[in-house]
């Protein structure tokens, strides 16, 4: 095989989702015997780009070349036919099947099912690259890292020469990460082309031969790992600080509102998601929360809202009018009954924050339906509120009874934010409040947050765009692997500083 020829080359790939351009004219080349790190922040278009290689999406423009010939990849099957296999972040495995049964699923090449032969072949692949997996083990008995191994072996079993791994280390412990890297090196030495999507700089430096950087859907450049350093890569990844001109007045009158100490929690797979998180949130400030996706942001907000079982730690609420309350161990209803006015704009707007099949009125009611005596709901106040939100936030809808599920993303968010702010909260938590929104709506949301802050609300703003966090927030708390890796003053901190806090703290919890 000609080493100079790209195994796969992308030329001018563009992909749009409605008005959003996820990938904008991207050129990229992969070589055999090489590990390419695809680096970029959340939302920079890494996964979208790779999904076009694995047959999930079709590019709107541009070409894909394999060994110099133009190819078209219309389905995952096509991708396999060209030797491309992708390991997605969400594993697609059948729980009650063994590893080998999952691996042979969908293979049509051999007529007869010979599970013993499959087991042997799986063992052979494992032996060759250094995986540690029992082909006869059931998936439901497996740890996350074992499931990942099954996914990788599945791809290799199908004879993939080009492997794409989407943030493979996101769910792994450091030890498991090391083991994965060893395997990746073995595969590189076996002349495979490997792409690893990541935003962790230390891992890029540890494993890759080359780094390609994407930023906001654009291709920034490719450098050899040996010739670069984390600082330079951070610069490429986050770019020069962009001035957004978000108005940021200072509320002189700040009071302590939430005191979180030693907070830990686990998800239902018993993976530690928060690890001894401590901070205070002040009334009258916006506390930004930065971190790569899945660093515990969701769990942090849900624990405060009483929606996530807490293993240890305490959350003290200090009421503006004096008095202190413990929120840990309380249900959302009990928290509200205590007089704690907590507003929460969750990441999953329609699945958690709103009732998609109802109109604005019905959704306004979600916070107030229990109010008033008697068995009947009061429709007038929510209807008035719906009209108010409609006018003030300029929601575009055929009517306040029109199901919100059918509204555009920006309008959905306006309905949600409008409702949450209307309860004049003392604590306002938002998760990715501007994700998927256009510029104008985003600014509307920023202004609303600032307005709330000036009214003395403690705003906790979980965000992904560092430029926004730096210009909107007063302080920024950085989460990394469920731990607080730093709390910085947003007026003085730099993007690089936060980027390093997000990524370079390698210490994740032990398995």
């Amino acid at each position, binding site marked *: 095989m000609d080493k100079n020829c790209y195994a796969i080359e992308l030329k001018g790939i563009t992909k749009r989702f409605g008005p959003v351009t996820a990938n904008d004219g991207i050129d990229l080349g992969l070589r055999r015997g090489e590990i390419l790190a695809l680096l970029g922040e959340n939302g920079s278009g890494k996964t979208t780009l790779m999904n076009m290689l694995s047959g999930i999406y079709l590019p709107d423009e541009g070409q894909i070349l394999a060994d110099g010939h133009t190819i078209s990849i219309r389905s995952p099957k096509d991708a396999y036919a060209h030797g491309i296999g992708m390991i997605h972040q969400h594993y697609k495995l059948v729980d009650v*099947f063994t590893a080998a049964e999952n691996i042979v699923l969908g293979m049509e090449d051999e007529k007869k099912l010979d599970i013993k032969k499959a087991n042997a072949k799986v063992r052979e692949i494992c032996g060759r690259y250094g995986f540690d997996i029992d082909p006869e083990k059931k998936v439901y008995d497996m740890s996350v890292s074992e499931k990942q191994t099954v996914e990788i072996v599945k791809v290799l079993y199908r004879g993939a020469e080009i492997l794409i791994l989407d943030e493979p280390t996101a769910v792994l412990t450091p030890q498991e990460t090391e083991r994965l890297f060893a395997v990746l090196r073995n595969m590189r030495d076996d002349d495979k082309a490997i792409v690893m999507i990541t935003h962790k700089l230390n891992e890029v430096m540890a494993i890759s031969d080359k780094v390609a950087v994407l930023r906001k859907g654009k291709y920034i450049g490719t450098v050899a790992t040996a010739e670069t350093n984390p600082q330079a890569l951070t610069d490429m990844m986050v770019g020069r600080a962009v001035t957004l001109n978000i108005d940021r007045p200072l509320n002189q009158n700040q009071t302590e509102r939430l005191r979180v100490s030693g907070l830990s929690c686990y998800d239902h797979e018993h993976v530690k998601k928060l690890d001894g998180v401590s901070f205070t949130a002040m009334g009258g400030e916006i506390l930004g929360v930065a971190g790569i996706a899945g660093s515990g942001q969701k769990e942090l907000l849900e624990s405060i809202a009483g929606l996530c079982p807490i293993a240890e730690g305490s959350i003290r609420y200090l009421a503006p009018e004096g008095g202190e309350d413990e929120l840990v161990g309380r249900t959302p209803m009990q928290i509200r009954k205590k007089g704690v006015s907590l507003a929460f704009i969750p990441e999953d707007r329609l699945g958690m924050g709103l009732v998609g099949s109802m109109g604005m009125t019905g959704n306004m009611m979600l916070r107030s339906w229990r109010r008033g005596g008697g068995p009947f709901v009061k429709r007038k106040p929510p209807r008035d509120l719906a009209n108010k939100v409609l006018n003030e936030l300029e929601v575009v809808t055929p009517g306040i009874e029109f199901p919100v599920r059918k509204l555009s993303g920006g309008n959905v968010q306006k309905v949600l934010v409008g409702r949450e702010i209307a309860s004049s909260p003392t604590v306002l938590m938002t998760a990715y409040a501007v994700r998927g929104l256009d510029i104008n709506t985003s600014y509307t949301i920023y202004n609303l947050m600032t307005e709330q802050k000036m009214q003395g609300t403690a705003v906790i703003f979980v965000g992904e765009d560092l430029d926004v966090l730096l210009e909107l927030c007063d302080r920024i708390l950085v989460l990394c692997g469920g731990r607080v890796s730093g709390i910085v003053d947003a007026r003085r901190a730099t993007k690089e500083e936060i980027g390093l806090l997000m990524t370079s703290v390698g210490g994740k919890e032990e398995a």
Partner: protein
Amino acid sequence: MNALDTVILLLLAAITYGTPLLYGTLGEILTEKSGNLNLGVEGILFMGGAFGLGGVYYLEKFAGTPSGLVAILVALLCAFLAGAAASLIFCFLTTTLRANQNVTGLALAIFGTGVGQFAGEMMRVRAGSYVTVSNELKDFFIASPFPQFLKDIPYLGQLIFGNSWFFYLGVVLAIGMHLFLKKTRKGLYLRAVGENPGTADSAGINVTRYKYLATVIGGGISAIGGVVYIVTTAGCTWNNEGLSGVGWLAVALVIFCLWRPLSALWGSVLFGALMILYMRLQLSFVPTELYKILPYVVTVIVLIISSLRNNKEKQPPASLGLAYFREDR
């Protein structure tokens, strides 16, 4: 000695009563393995019973008494086709037109019992008297395929070799289905479809095709249960009274045997025994009618225990009753 005879007689009767259930259950297992919860089994059994009987009856009427094996084949084929057609309606509505499975299944139960009864009564009206087949065929249907000397083996002879053709066919079918689900590629894929259609789809398995095939073939197999009931227990006449409830019992048995074809073998005998126990085993402290609810009670207990223990191997197919649409992925 006498007690032993009683037990053997009871077991033989239990097998006879359990055989229609066995088919109903095996068919529904296949259907549910694809993630489709077809609650129309009751209707399917009715249709199978009526059309299976009709097939044999008209064959004999127009072509003279056929050989026993031909009659059995015709009965099975007619019942199978009727059940397959009914299940095709179900599958088309739920898989292609995305209707709710529970509601569609109940509609099929209503439709199928209607069609079965209608066909049964129409035959009677046309014939002007009870529709039945010749005594030769009747005897053949309940006769054992094995020679007499095997049946003469003390105690076990009758039990092992004395049952009808249909029972042995059901045993073969159960073993075949077990092997199909456990040992073949298509069986593996079918289970994947029922467990996690999204995963199956992304692995390149044609989810719709598997659902259709499993549901239609499963419906056909279930329907055979109807005709088996008619030609063995009901004496080859249309008897909707006796057949009613067998389909629902089959749905219960699917749960009871935890979606395993081999367990359906002894499960159907057990349920068959519970159905007739009151006739054979009169205990003064158990009212006879209460025996009949035992199958349902034990099924509920199995259902509760399996949800309580949360043993992954003993659960319904994970996507059972849920619609799968690719864009929802």
